[in-house]
């Protein structure tokens, strides 16, 4: 059986690889210092053009808000915790929080978290794992 180094597809275009090491790609505006998730050439905050630098986003941050999702699209396993995270570099990003009991009243605001990478199959692509990112408590 031939071995092929097939890379798993990424769940989002801003989830990239440095060699075989995954990272979250961002853009930082030289004019206003805002850090965006993903690639862009124009700043949505200050409208500056040609002032974007590609960056690797911070891998730690704090939970700004959370919710526990109990009902989702058919086939999606629930409950899961959906968080908005303030990364330490100023970017803001949504993701799933792992490693925490899904008890909504027991998840503190500003919980320190880190980015983790894992393989998981999307609900509409069963058996086809994708590279994804998530958060875990620091």
């Amino acid at each position: 059986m031939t071995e092929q180094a097939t890379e798993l597809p990424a769940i989002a275009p801003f989830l990239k690889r440095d060699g075989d090491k995954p990272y979250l790609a961002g853009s930082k505006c030289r004019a206003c210092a805002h850090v965006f998730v993903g690639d862009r050439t124009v700043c949505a905050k200050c409208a500056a053009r040609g002032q974007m630098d590609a960056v690797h986003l911070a891998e730690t941050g704090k939970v700004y808000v959370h919710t526990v999702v109990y009902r989702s699209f058919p086939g999606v396993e629930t409950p899961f915790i959906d968080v908005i995270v303030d990364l330490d570099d100023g970017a803001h990003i949504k993701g799933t929080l792992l490693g925490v009991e899904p008890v909504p009243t027991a998840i503190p605001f500003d919980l320190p978290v880190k980015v983790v990478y894992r393989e998981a199959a999307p609900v509409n692509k069963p058996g086809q794992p994708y590279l994804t990112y998530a958060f875990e408590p620091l």
Partner: protein
Amino acid sequence: MTEDVYIVGIDMIRFGRYPDRTVPDLAAEAALMALDDAGLDIKAIQALFSGNLGQASGMVGQRMLAEIGQTGIPVTNVANACATGATAFRDAWMSIKAGAYDTVLAVGVEQMGKGLLGGSLGASPEGLVGSGTMPAMFSHIGMEHARRYGTTFEQFAQVSVKNHWHSTMNAKSMYRKETPLQEVMGAEMIAWPNTKLMCSVNVDGSAAAVLMSGTKARQLGLMDRAVKVRVSEMSSNPFTDRQMAMPDFSAATRLAVANAYEKAGLGPQDINLVELHDCFATAEIVHYENLGLCADGEAGRLISDGDTQLGGRIPVNVSGGLLSKGHPLGATGIANMYEIATHLRGAAGDRQVQGARMGMTHVVGGGPGMGTACAIHILEKV
């Protein structure tokens, strides 16, 4: 000098489930009701703005005219998330302000399935990368309010108790059943803290308005049933730091509302009743502050003290709101104007806000990774 614009006819069908009807047919019913309310027929209409999301590329306006009178008038089909109906109305208003027409019809219509909106074309990130569902999005917004001000699950749930009670007095509402607090809090949890009874209902519905210039309305002797459009404002989502991760309906709302109050020369104290966008119970709470009905941080107290129920200081969603009356996406923006107009005409029966002279409508819609549209209208008794 630009004309004042009036609503001379407005109506809506009772929201419900009509799987055997077509979208143009639902729109046509509301259009004929609004024309009848104005005492006009379709031949008097000079332009049509038709709001619908589900068949946005399906020329609903033209198909509606095919049912009630193919007069060849200009038709614009409008899609703008939950602000669709209000955008169609605003475009009609703007065309009269511009002096292009004096009699214009705006229609909003939607036919929906049950359950969660949305879904993915590519690999779905749902569950893997948080949730793209509407309840999750508005739960985050509620949790932000809880984080800032300590607002409780119970306070959010009180919104549903209020709006379901209001709808028992509205024959056009999909649901007309009271829901005590324990029932709301004990219902199936969808995304904390919104239970099933704290989520607006996906229903079928349509609403329509005939707009007319002041000159024409006086010429035709329609001022006795006219309601003045005091101001029409819209906004899209201005940049705020977290809005790409967590859609910011508050920023768009505050921007449109500030412009509306300024252009109208009014403040929140001048408004007698409000129909705002309670797509989820958590949304209503934050919009109290966004619309200036109370100071920031006071929304929890406003609901707990009963200030926003019928008979309170500033009645909100006496129609039953999106939570109980229903939220057919394209129709909502005109349906809430029907509610305000009805009170301004003194015709709201059991749920009449006494002495109503000035009412505000608010819709705001959008989605994760997409953006936001907000529309604010202030209607005034003539």
